[in-house]
């Protein structure tokens, strides 16, 4: 998943939305262009809201294995490795 993807695209969406609102408010864009910007803004708002509702907190523990390799073990919320038991 894509904490990475969420980050990038949310940031993109928010920046683009700000730019669209600014353009609509200040620039002398013609009507066709204004409507196209509005359409894009509505679409960006929709995807941004979807991304905002994505959940998926992932907990991991980093350690160094005997061979010096990095190991990332999954943890549950109580801080245990699910495979511990």
């Amino acid at each position: 998943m894509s904490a990475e993807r969420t980050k990038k695209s949310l940031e993109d969406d928010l920046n683009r939305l700000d730019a669209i609102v600014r353009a609509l408010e200040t620039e002398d864009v013609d009507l066709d262009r204004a409507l196209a910007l509005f359409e894009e803004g509505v679409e960006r708002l929709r995807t941004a809201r979807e991304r905002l509702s994505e959940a998926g907190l992932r907990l991991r523990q980093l350690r160094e294995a005997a061979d010096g390799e990095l190991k990332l073990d999954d943890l549950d919320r109580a801080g245990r490795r699910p495979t511990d038991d």
Partner: protein
Amino acid sequence: MTLALPFDESPRERPSTVSEVVASARLVIEHALPAQWVEGEISNFKTYPSGHWYFSLKDPATQLRCVMFRSDARRVPALPSQGMKVYARGELSISKRGELELIVRQLLATTEGGFYAIALERARAALEKDGLLAAERKRPLPAFPAVVGVVTSPEGAVWHDIVAVIGRRWPAVELVLIGARVQGDGAPEDLMRALALADRLPRLDVLIVGRGGGSREDLWAFNDERVARAVAASRAPTIAAVGHETDVTLTELVADVRAATPSAAAEKAVPDRADLARRLAVTGNGLAAAVARRLELAEERVSHAATRLGGSVDRRLAATLERLRRHGTRMGAACDRRLAARTADVARLGASLDALSPLKVVGRGYSVARDAGGRVLRRVADFPAGREFRLRVTDGEVPARAEERT
């Protein structure tokens, strides 16, 4: 051969060796004198590669040789200096060289703050000299981190608190625990190992380093100059959270951001989903309001053109303009009502934005006139008598021609 002795008697008992005498004196002293505190001034202080310390404790009349072994010396936060007044606790013994010595287990400065204050000031000065405390060094935290690292004890409440806060605010992250002992012997080394490990992660957007509250001794590892330097060297921006009320640790001074508690650190590390939802709602309102103003402006222009054209306008065009004015006004009013009604309600925002879609605006009778080349015709001058043009309406285009003006 005869040896002439100055005395005519030889010892009746077998003489002891030097080592035997020293050993028995040592036994007597070690058994007779309990461990005790001694007050004196440090003199002739030396460290050895083994990590042991050798020095003397002096008073105006005499001096006492002292040794402090590595395992005890490492717990003293700073090297003592010549002439420093100290309290030393230890046991008296006789050294292998036959000298009386105090085996020091604990060393305290007699001044306020003691060794801690001395060590802290020395380390702070060294960090400052290297520019590590400069405000310009502070890096901003990323707005939307994807991977958040936490260097802390896996056993403490810190990890639990951070998981809870981030789970509530911004669950779209990977939270990575890098466990380390945060107090006691070896804690600085363990913290440095964890920081180095964190730096090897292929991706790390922000790193929280912290522990819960504790005494000054408990927090001491976070004042270790080496730990502070390791935090300063982190590739990812850092947030230090060392829970305490008064002292600020060196780790916090070098970190990019300082937080009062681990929970506060978690709040600084990630954005708040609810805040962003509100921001999106505001942006949505701005978008709707801006496009509504734009449509109003267009409608005004067209109606102005209609007035100037007067009765000479094609009836079909006049009817279109009239419809546009009516619907435009209606849409503006509807838009105003919606803008007033919506505040932070994101779900409702979506519905109202759909209602404002330009496709629906066109569907209500808004049309656009273009010439054969597709250029939008806006002004009276764009409509010379006999000019053929095309009207774009919701389901297609209508051919049209401007009539002779009377």
